[in-house]
């Protein structure tokens, strides 16, 4: 009896799966066109899955091993089950192989079930609680049904009662695992995920690559939408990416805005995009809501606006403006979903079409247009911080080794101390450097992240034109935001430069023995990784190497390097200032205090401002450049390395 029922069940489920896959595929294709390498992507997919994706999953050993067993066992079991039970290839060898595969899957599923006994809050409940049972049912049913094939029991073992039970079990299993995969069940993540890896919007991310620069809007094409108003304004492979979400909540656990009680949860946002893609309400979402926003009040559809400024639609504007673009969610996402891209896409529509940048947003953007700096300071004052430093100007020198990109920190009195410290280091190392002076403009970072692509491109193009007049080997900057934009985002507009963060450059100077340094005497130090240096550009080592070179043993925070928590200063978040229960910099300062360090070393003007804004007793905030400048030894007569002269460290203020 089973030999007739099983093929019917299997092929019916497969047929339904194929129909579902077609439907889902057409849903994704409602999005705007995107260029993908159709075949190459598919061919590269297994490697991306087993290497790149597994690399992220493997940060949690428990679930990585569980997933290998369950998913590996399932794929093997599915193929073999189709051969053995579908096509009736009753060979003992295949039978034993299928037994092994289902056994492996069963063991994996047991561990899935164990995690679900008391699931952490980041995990979605609802249908996801059913999944381990379905997995166990699939594995167990096929295991028992395959025993006769392997010749372990006789063909009529168990009689019709067992046959009926197995039929029910198999039906349940294939429902969840075959056609549930393409009809929107929890297993959808495997199907959409695999294709998402194949046709990812940032294929450069795989095989050890990095792709973090935002993609430019085509402003010359009058018909191209300015950002994303409705789900179909996303490119189709972005929509596919949302569908790949496995709702593991790693993003939720890492998101600083969520932790601060601001109305953002990256996981919910992606699920809302899935709701928008298919149409409906968010009532079925079984995870944590946006803080302060109950589930079930929002709904949307593929052709409906995502944000309604005068009421409720799919997502509220303040959810989008809570993001600091720290990329912690993207870094943690095992499915390689691009949350930040989606958020900025939607912000672009709000800013460029609706003129609805909240709070100080409009003022900052107006300032950038009128004065080239977000604070609205007189452009003529850009070099006032260096009035007494006799800095060489690019317009005088034309050609230098290092172009020192000052950034808008030039207008901020706190950051001027950092800039002056770094100039002192450059001078001590006798670097051939110059600044653009009044020719420099804001890099466009804040404008772009506030969604004002037009102002970003305006600033970028002017900067590129200015930089094009001069010869230099590298650009060095103390600002990771300028660093990222110059390095990764100007390229699309025609500006290709070698750009270094000042910590990287100082590390080169130190290893090239260009600096004579003493040792740090100011107490224990911890280091806060800036998002735009670390996660965006992968520079975790150089700052630590510099600190080590001046005798500092960094007291690492629990969340450091790629897991570093944002200071709250990125993505225009201090400008849009969406209220939460606590402030992000306060949380970061609590992380810092846990290390009991007396000084926190930073490498970013934003981080400096945010962390110094924390009230009360707290460690001192010092830029790496300041720490290095503090221990510079006067080298009138060059000193030999490793023989520090007894000269007191210079004070820099």
């Amino acid at each position, binding site marked *: 009896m089973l030999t007739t029922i099983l093929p019917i069940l299997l092929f019916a489920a497969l047929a339904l799966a194929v129909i579902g896959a077609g439907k889902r595929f057409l849903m994704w294709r409602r999005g705007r066109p995107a260029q993908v390498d159709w075949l190459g992507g598919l061919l590269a997919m297994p490697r991306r899955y087993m290497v790149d994706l597994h690399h992220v999953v493997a940060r949690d050993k428990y679930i990585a091993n569980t997933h290998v067993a369950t998913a590996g066992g399932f794929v093997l079991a599915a193929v073999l089950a189709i051969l053995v039970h579908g096509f009736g290839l009753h060979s003992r060898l295949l039978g034993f192989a299928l037994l092994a595969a289902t056994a492996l899957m069963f063991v994996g599923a047991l561990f899935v079930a164990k995690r679900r006994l008391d699931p952490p809050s980041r995990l979605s409940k609802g249908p996801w609680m059913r999944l381990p049972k379905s997995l166990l049912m699939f594995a167990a049913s096929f295991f028992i049904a395959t025993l006769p094939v392997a010749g372990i029991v006789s063909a009529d073992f168990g009689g019709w009662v067992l046959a009926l039970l197995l039929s029910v079990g198999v039906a349940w299993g294939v429902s969840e695992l075959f056609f549930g995969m393409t009809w929107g069940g929890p297993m959808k993540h495997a199907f959409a995920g695999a294709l998402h890896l194949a046709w990812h919007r940032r294929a450069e991310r795989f095989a050890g690559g990095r792709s973090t620069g935002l993609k430019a809007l085509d402003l010359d094409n*009058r018909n191209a939408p300015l950002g994303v108003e409705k789900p179909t304004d996303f490119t189709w492979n972005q929509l596919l990416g949302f569908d790949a979400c496995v709702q593991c909540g790693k993003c939720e656990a890492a998101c600083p805005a969520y932790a601060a009680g601001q109305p953002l949860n990256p996981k919910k946002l992606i699920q809302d995009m899935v709701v928008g893609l298919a149409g409906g309400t968010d009532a079925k979402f079984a995870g944590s809501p946006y803080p302060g926003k109950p589930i079930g009040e929002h709904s949307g559809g593929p052709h409906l606006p995502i944000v309604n400024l005068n009421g409720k639609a799919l997502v509220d504007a303040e959810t989008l403006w809570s993001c600091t673009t720290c990329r912690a969610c993207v870094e943690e996402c095992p499915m390689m979903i691009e949350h930040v891209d989606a958020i900025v896409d939607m912000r672009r529509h709000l800013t*460029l079409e609706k*003129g609805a940048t909240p709070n100080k947003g409009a003022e900052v953007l107006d300032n950038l247009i009128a004065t*080239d700096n977000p604070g609205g300071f007189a452009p003529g004052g850009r070099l006032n911080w260096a009035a007494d430093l006799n800095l060489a100007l690019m317009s005088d020198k034309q050609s230098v080794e290092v172009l020192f990109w000052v950034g808008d920190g030039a207008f901020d009195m706190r950051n001027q101390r950092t800039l002056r410290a770094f100039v002192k280091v450059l001078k001590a190392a006798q670097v051939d450097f110059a600044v653009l002076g009044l020719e420099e403009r804001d890099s466009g970072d804040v404008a772009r992240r506030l969604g004002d692509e037009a102002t970003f491109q305006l600033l970028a193009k002017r900067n590129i034109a200015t930089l094009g007049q001069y010869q230099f080997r590298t650009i060095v900057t103390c600002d990771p935001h300028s660093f990222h934009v110059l390095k990764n985002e100007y390229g699309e507009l025609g500006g290709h430069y070698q750009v270094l963060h000042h910590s990287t450059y100082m590390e080169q100077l130190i290893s090239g023995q260009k600096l004579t340094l003493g040792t740090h005497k100011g107490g224990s130090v911890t280091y806060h990784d800036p998002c735009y240096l670390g996660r965006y550009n992968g520079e975790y080592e150089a700052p630590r190497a510099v600190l080590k070179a001046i005798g500092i043993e960094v007291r690492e925070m629990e969340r450091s390097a790629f897991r570093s928590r944002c200071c709250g200063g990125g993505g225009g978040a201090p400008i849009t200032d969406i209220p939460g229960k606590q402030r992000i910099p306060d949380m970061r300062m609590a992380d810092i205090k846990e290390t009991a360090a007396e000084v926190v070393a930073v490498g970013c003007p934003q981080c400096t401002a945010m962390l110094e804004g924390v009230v009360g007793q707290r460690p001192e905030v010092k830029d790496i450049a300041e720490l290095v400048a503090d221990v510079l030894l006067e080298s009138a007569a060059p000193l030999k390395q490793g023989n520090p002269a007894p000269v007191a460290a210079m004070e820099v203020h």
Partner: protein
Amino acid sequence: MTELNIVALVSVGAHPLSGRPRRAEQDARAVELGLHLAGERLQVLHAGDPQQEALRAYLGMGLNQLKILEQPAHSDALPVLADYLADSSAQLVLTGSQAETGEGSGMLPFLLAEQLGWPLVVGLAAVEQVSDGVAQVLQALPRGQRRRLQVRLPFVASVDNAAPTARQSAFGPARRGLLTAEEVELVADPLFASAQLQPAKPRPKRLKVIKAKTGAERMKAATAKASGGGGQVLKDVSPEAGAEAIFKLLLEEGVLR
């Protein structure tokens, strides 16, 4: 209120620190007020160069088009505006108090109202309601005070910083909106022929001597109405007697000679 025909007059502004052309701060507030009252039906009018891209910043506030009476720089905007408005069905003309570029004398609203023969409300803060051809408006006075006025339509009103802040200008509508030029008779400004422009010097400021000894006194000084002292309150007098009293005062003050 939506039936009201409103025209907002706008000029090209200049950022106070960088000098770059932009939408003029007060004119943008006039547009904001107009958009609030008339929505899409608001007409926005500029006399000058239709190629000036800075005008698009007004379009970015959500206007479909901006009408430009085309004239070269240093022409007299007053006659062309007055002609245009006299022929239009405008019931309320909104302007800023003073332009940020050009002559910037702040005289335009006054001269325009005089030429049209319409009343002028300076420092308009809000239009509360319009009925039977009479508008009830709030006029801003110093120190946050407001005066409620009844004005017969049509009238001219100038706004200053007491009017609501202008909304953000968005790139999309700014790019899509139309700058439609209309040819008008050119009128040379005789002032520009004889005089020349020079940068303004800040006026010397009277030193503020704080006489208050206590917090309460300081509070009183900060919130007290500006009082000129002297003067007289006329009540229940005939219009002739009232006019005579005003005429006498103007003579005394040297306003009339």
